[in-house]
């Protein structure tokens, strides 16, 4: 007999070892997330996937499913808290969606829509984050980095390269690349690298591919992020 737990009143089956978010997504239930990616070891840093397990807040991408758990996710309280987290991510970086290549394909933007975020609410930090355009094929626009570390994990664990790493700490945390010059052009990054594909926002971009798919026909133009479950499973 498969084991189950309760998520928002619904019975969710799970395999031993699965986390709450894995079981939920497999059962077709969306839980907002940014740093979780089915192919990588969970990181547990963005906290967007926070749910309440038996009344206590916890990140569902790191919490293992267990029989009989009572999990709340799609509640006004939790969605309000998640909205605040998204607002924090917006004001921490420099996000100007209308001019962003990733607009419509961006998970941060789509999550903001999903959660009904109407304004950034907090005062912007306006950090100074120079763009790295050194590479002939790729552009790094750090202004949009949300420090999810997916590119770090992909490069290290899949590509076996460690092109990306996190540096400094606290609000000064930022991404660096593996080159004495500090420039992407001087790393061994390749276009086929998994690390180049995984960025949920508009940091790691292909040059000269700009706006290949017109706005209005992009991933989250067709359906909101919660309607992309299979995609969440495979992308």
């Amino acid at each position, binding site marked *: 007999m498969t084991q189950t737990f309760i998520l928002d009143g619904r019975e969710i089956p799970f395999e031993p070892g699965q986390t709450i978010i894995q079981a939920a997504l497999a059962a077709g239930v969306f839980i907002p997330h940014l740093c979780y990616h089915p192919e990588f070891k*969970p990181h*547990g*840093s*963005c*906290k*967007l996937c*926070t749910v309440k397990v038996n009344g206590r*807040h916890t*990140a569902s991408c*790191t919490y*293992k499913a267990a029989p009989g758990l009572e999990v709340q996710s799609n509640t006004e309280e939790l969605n309000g*808290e998640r909205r*605040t*987290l998204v607002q*924090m*991510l917006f*004001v*921490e970086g420099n996000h100007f969606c209308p001019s962003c290549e990733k607009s419509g394909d961006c998970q941060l933007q789509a999550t903001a829509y999903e959660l009904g975020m109407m304004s950034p609410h*907090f*005062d912007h*930090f306006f950090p100074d984050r120079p763009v790295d355009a050194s590479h002939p094929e790729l552009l790094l626009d750090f202004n949009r980095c*949300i*420090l999810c570390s997916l590119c770090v994990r992909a490069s290290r664990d899949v590509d076996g390269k*460690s*092109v*990306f*790493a*996190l*540096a*400094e*700490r*606290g*609000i*000064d*945390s930022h991404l*660096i*690349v*593996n*080159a*004495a010059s500090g420039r992407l052009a001087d790393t061994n990054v390749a276009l086929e690298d998994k690390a180049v594909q995984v960025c949920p926002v508009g940091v790691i971009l292909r040059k000269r591919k700009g706006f290949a798919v017109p706005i209005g026909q992009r991933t989250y133009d067709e359906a909101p992020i919660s309607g992309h479950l299979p995609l969440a499973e495979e992308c």
Partner: protein
Amino acid sequence: MSSGSLESILCKYDGSPHNLLQILREVQEEEGWITPATVAALETALAVPRAKIEGAASFYSFLHLQPVGRYRILFSDNIIDRMGGSQALMERLCNLLWVEPGKLSEDGLVSVTTTSCTGMCDQGPALLVNGRAITRVDEARIDAIAERVRAQVPLAEWPGEWFQVEDNVHRRDILLGSDFEPGSGLRALHARVETDGIQASNTRSWREGLPRGLVGPATMLDEIKHANLRGRGGAGFTTGLKWEACRNAPLADGQDRIVVCNADEGEPGTFKDRVLLTSHADMVFEGMTLAAYAVGARRGFLYLRGEYRYLLEHLEGVLARRRRDNLLGHSIIGIPGADFDIKIHVGFGAYVCGEESALIESLEGKRGTPRNRPPFPVTHGYLDQPTIVNNVETFAAAALIALNGGEWYKNIGTSHSAGSKILSVSGDCERPGLYEFPFGVSVAEVLEACGAKDTQAVQVSGPSGFTIAAHEFDRKICFEDIPTAGAFMVFDKTRDMFQVARNFVHFFAHESCGFCTPCRVGTSLLRNLMDKLHNGQGSPYDFEEIEKLNHILQAMSHCGLGHSACNPVLDTIEKFRPAYDSRLLHQQFTPAFDLDQALSQARQMTGRDDELAHFGAEHGDKQ
């Protein structure tokens, strides 16, 4: 750096990437900073990508990937230092040396800036010069420092008394008052094992062959459990349960159990571990050895905060003596197979590394980011091996328990808090320093003992602890009332409790590791809000914002740092509301943008400062 000396440092650290941070420290101690050439050499020698080396090094305040001045001066910036005039002293030094705070002087000679509390709160204001603490700083000392920096006098030739650090123990109880004989705890325990015979819980471990190393029978564990010892690092976890979980954790091939002593002591206002390591190091190391005996560990680490780097040679000396006396090493006190040794790992200015899983990451040579739990360190700690992490004072207490027995210990203190607690008292009182009391002592009794007058509030257990107001001074220091990691900062009636809270909020923002969104962004937002109030631009609306941030930080943060970052603000709003109200400009919403401030440039250019040149009359006397 000569390739020879890098070679010998690498050799000392087994050429292991897990020792990256200690290697970087030793290189920096020779060269002043970590040059690109060093990074390149280590990239090859350790087979670690340079981005990882830079990522790890840049996490820590005291490791430098950029050239730093020949003199690097850091003023301790806890509220207690500030009350002692540290800000004016720093300004004075900057003026004398012609430097801007935080910037390297043009000749590359000196930089002056601030750092989090350096653990010298009873003899401040304090500063660090190239990592060495100078205590009791006053104007005369500042002038003399400036002179020596300008004349480029080597640090070794500066007056020794500047670097003197006092113990300042004003009340001793069972721990600080004992003349602990090195080895006496181990021998007392061993004697008890032989007379007690093998107990039920050991037979099981013997049979399962679980403990390795000291292969200790369960006697030590039983004494610790019987004593009801609880951790002294803040959380008050039952030590016996932690040790037992580690002892029972299965080992994979080639694994060992690990004992870690947490001497990161980063909580502002806490300095008891410094004194324990200065004057009672044997007790601490013996406690670690006894813990190793209890859990079956062969390797131990002392994680020493970077601010206490000056204790390293002393501590290495104590370890060497204990090895000579057969209190460490192989077959300790002649027990066959009883093997255990301790290495010292020096930290580099990161408060979060006091959190046990971040500490373990740091021990492994990485960024000090708290781990996802479960699994917990007791089963998957240092390099995934079963690991116990305990506070310095916890280990010292364990040594006493081995010596005198659990029954003796549990009868001291209160029913839920056995034993004594060492308090680090600082701030507005006649005799700042250490006070050891049995648990259950009231705040008022401590205030009386240290000679505090007209006390308005006490911050117990540091910024992440509790602000206790006068009407609560009969409350007791113990786990069931006011639990504490040891800090006891006293504020008299002349102090502005809003500034106390603002200082603490700046501390959390500075020390957030940046891993999780709520803490990384939330602590900075909170800091900005407190600064907005400080600048006289607050409104009641900002209280709602503080409430909201508090909720997000408490509910969603990854570790205790984020969880407690709002505590000082909430406590002071509740208990010292007038300190906030007096700062509110309007009773309604006020934007962070200040039109009058924005006009100041225009005023300067036109040379006007009359009433009509201001937007809103109430701004006139604001700054």
